[in-house]
């Protein structure tokens, strides 16, 4: 990296509990450094504030974003304060699985270093890299559609919460250690006021929709709508899938003029022939001439999910670089087979290890032999069911006297519903937790004694609640499905969990809209069944 850092911070510098390591990136407004937690003795940090009370402990590593807000910094900029306030405000108020997390904010108090004194430091979740770096290394990554689906989820979460990103581009899409995607860099983000928001008058030319080129600017900044992010998503999708911009031109200026000509109707949109057919319509829906014709974020998410074949199920990307201790396990034949079949089933790469979601599952995987082998006679131990949940899954099934409600069925459903992700949050579909409970439905199954909850519960729904509630519901469904329905009754029960037993009875089998879901459940029913058992 040869370009100068906007905020030079020496390696080893202490801020709060953090020790600065190597630089990661520098943007238009500040610089980001890697950092590790050096203990709890405070360094040169003051005015420390954590976004949420009762926050879990700080992670071991983080990304520190230094913004030159001090009075003696060479770039004393009025608007910087405002940009930072936007970003901090967003992090304070929004917490979604596809948005980067902020742990705390700090202010550097170090009069001996006037260039750093007064700088604002945002302590953020550490990412492994950015989409921009990935595209530089690997144009047209094979995981492109899966990445885009996650980016789209992030946009839907942001828009659903009433915010506009305002500067969506590859550099602001981060890839995490586990291969999942987070949106970041909310300097331009703004909360919607009715149909539009006001953002500072900055933008990235290649991702700016034509209606914002040379737009009128009021004293509060420029007005933008969520549709501006949708345009940027269209450009980004085209870039990820074809390694080229959708509008022709060798320079940003030429592409800007092409965008203007297209928006005026003097030129047509000519997308790259390399763009897969399913994505052609999606990109067209994003890159419409006017914002009124543009596809809504929710509709976009549905189309993207249809194109990537994920339904509304989460999935994980292959690790960019698996941590060392996992390599040995990945080399095992069984694990390799699991990856291969899973990849076939999804049509995309699936994470190969079996301990997603962190928490207790990860560390317990190898240490706790009894948990890992719990119920081995009824549920295979070598197919990636996280050991942490085996006890819950097996005992929940035993609590039900219906012969079709088995540990294998519950495990297969959890796999398909959430990929065993205890932290799943899907506000767009109102589904949360490892079993994808909708709060108003969970209310009827949350209590052990069968009485409904007094009020609709609020997420998070931990596995210890989600899985037994799921068992109770399945146990209630099983006898209500007509005897004469064709097919595997366990698959019918799973379909009824999604669509209600009445729908399944009326359809005379698996309803067409959950066919893909049912097929995946059927696949994992085979996968998780011990040899010779069903």
């Amino acid at each position, binding site marked *: 990296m040869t370009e100068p850092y906007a905020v030079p911070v020496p390696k080893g510098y202490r801020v709060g509990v953090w020790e600065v390591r190597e630089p990661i990136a520098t943007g*238009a407004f500040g610089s980001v450094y890697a950092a590790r937690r050096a203990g709890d003795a405070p360094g040169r940090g003051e005015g420390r504030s954590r976004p949420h009370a009762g926050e879990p402990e700080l992670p071991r590593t983080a990304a520190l974003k230094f913004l030159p807000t001090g009075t003696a910094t060479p770039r004393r900029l009025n608007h910087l304060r405002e940009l930072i306030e936007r970003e901090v405000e967003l992090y304070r108020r929004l917490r979604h699985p596809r948005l980067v997390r902020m742990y705390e904010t700090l202010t550097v108090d170090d009069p001996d270093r006037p260039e750093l004194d007064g700088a604002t430091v945002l302590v953020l979740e550490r990412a492994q890299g950015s989409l921009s770096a990935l595209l530089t290394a690997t144009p047209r990554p094979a995981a492109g559609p899966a990445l885009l689906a996650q980016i789209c989820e992030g946009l839907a979460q942001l828009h659903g919460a009433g915010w506009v990103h305002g500067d969506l581009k590859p550099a602001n899409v981060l890839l995490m250690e586990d291969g999942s995607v987070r949106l970041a860099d909310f300097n331009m983000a703004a909360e919607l006021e009715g149909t539009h928001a006001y953002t500072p008058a900055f933008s990235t030319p290649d991702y700016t929709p034509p209606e914002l080129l040379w*737009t009128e600017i*009021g004293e509060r900044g420029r007005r933008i709508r969520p549709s501006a992010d949708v345009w940027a998503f269209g450009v980004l999708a085209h870039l990820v899938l074809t390694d080229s911009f959708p509008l022709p031109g060798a320079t940003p200026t030429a592409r800007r003029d092409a965008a203007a000509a297209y928006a005026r109707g003097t030129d047509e949109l000519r997308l790259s022939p390399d763009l897969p057919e399913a994505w052609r319509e999606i990109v067209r829906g994003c890159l419409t001439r006017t914002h009124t014709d543009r596809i809504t974020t929710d509709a976009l998410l549905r189309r993207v999910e249809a194109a990537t074949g994920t339904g509304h199920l989460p999935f994980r990307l292959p690790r960019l670089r698996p941590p060392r201790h996992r390599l040995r396990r990945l080399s095992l034949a069984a694990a390799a087979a699991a990856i291969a079949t899973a990849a076939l089933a999804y049509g995309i790469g699936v994470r190969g290890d079996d301990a997603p979601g962190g928490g207790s599952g990860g560390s317990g995987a190898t240490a706790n032999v009894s948990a890992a082998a719990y119920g081995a006679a009824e549920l295979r131990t070598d197919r990636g069911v996280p050991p942490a949940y085996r006890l819950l899954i097996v005992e929940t099934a035993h609590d039900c006297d219906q012969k079709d409600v088995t540990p294998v069925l519950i495990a297969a459903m959890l796999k398909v519903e959430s990929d065993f992700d205890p932290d799943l949050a899907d506000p767009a579909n109102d589904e949360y937790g490892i079993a994808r409970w909708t709060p108003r439905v969970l209310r009827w199954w949350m209590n052990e004694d069968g009485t409904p909850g007094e009020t609709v519960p609020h997420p998070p729904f931990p596995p210890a609640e989600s899985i037994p509630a799921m068992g109770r519901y399945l146990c209630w469904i099983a006898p209500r499905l007509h005897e004469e329905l064709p097919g595997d009754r366990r698959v019918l029960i799973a379909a009824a969990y999604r669509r209600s037993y009445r729908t399944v009875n009326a359809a005379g089998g698996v309803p067409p809209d959950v066919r893909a879901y049912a097929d995946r459940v059927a696949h994992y029913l085979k996968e998780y069944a011990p040899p010779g058992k069903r």
Partner: protein
Amino acid sequence: MYSIIVVPPPTTEDERNRPQIRLAPGERLTFGRSAHDNDLRIAHDGVSRRAGEITAQGAFWILSNLSREQTYVVENPEGAGEHVKVAPGRLDAPIPFEFSRIVLPAAGDLLPLEVWAPRHDYLSGTGGLDGATTAPAFSVDRTKRYFAVLAALCEPRLRGTPHAPLPTVDQVADRLRPTWPAASRTSVQWNIDYLAVKLRLKPGPESADPGPRLNGKKESLVSLALRFDLVREDDLAVLAAPPGRVTR
């Protein structure tokens, strides 16, 4: 989405409020004496029936001289004599100036046709030419007179209190006269109007009312310029040295 503005020569009726024709990239405007052959009629016997054509080309524009005999001169009014000559029959000559005056020689008269290119891009402090860098939406040329006018308007607030009253147009003219001897109420007002176009100032609710409008426009310009750091304290140096000239 226009990038070029054409201001036709003044006629007696519209001395004060000359119309502006806005062109988006790729759009053309033909001009000449004939009313039905041209988009812009220039009613003067000395002008060719089809005199020329202006095409907006991204942030700049090109000029075709359709006359048989007359050379058109395109001057940069702030460029100390800088100009481009476009010979008869020359097509699509690129014009690089932000402000241009096409001088049409017409039977002893010289008719000025003004063309503004307010979208010229300038390197911003942080970013390069890379389309992936977040860049400010404004691009100002700090050597132009409009920038001096903007600096003079912002000066009291940059030097003094944040709510200092804004200077009047006459005060701005007086402030700029040492470095710009020709500064006058009219020329300062012209630059304020141009800044409103250049910075794409959204007309406020008061714009229908001619009275406080001027004041509202100045107020909006200054608040926009300070909010987005278009003028900083260091930039007040332009008030001491004339733009593009050596102080004596």
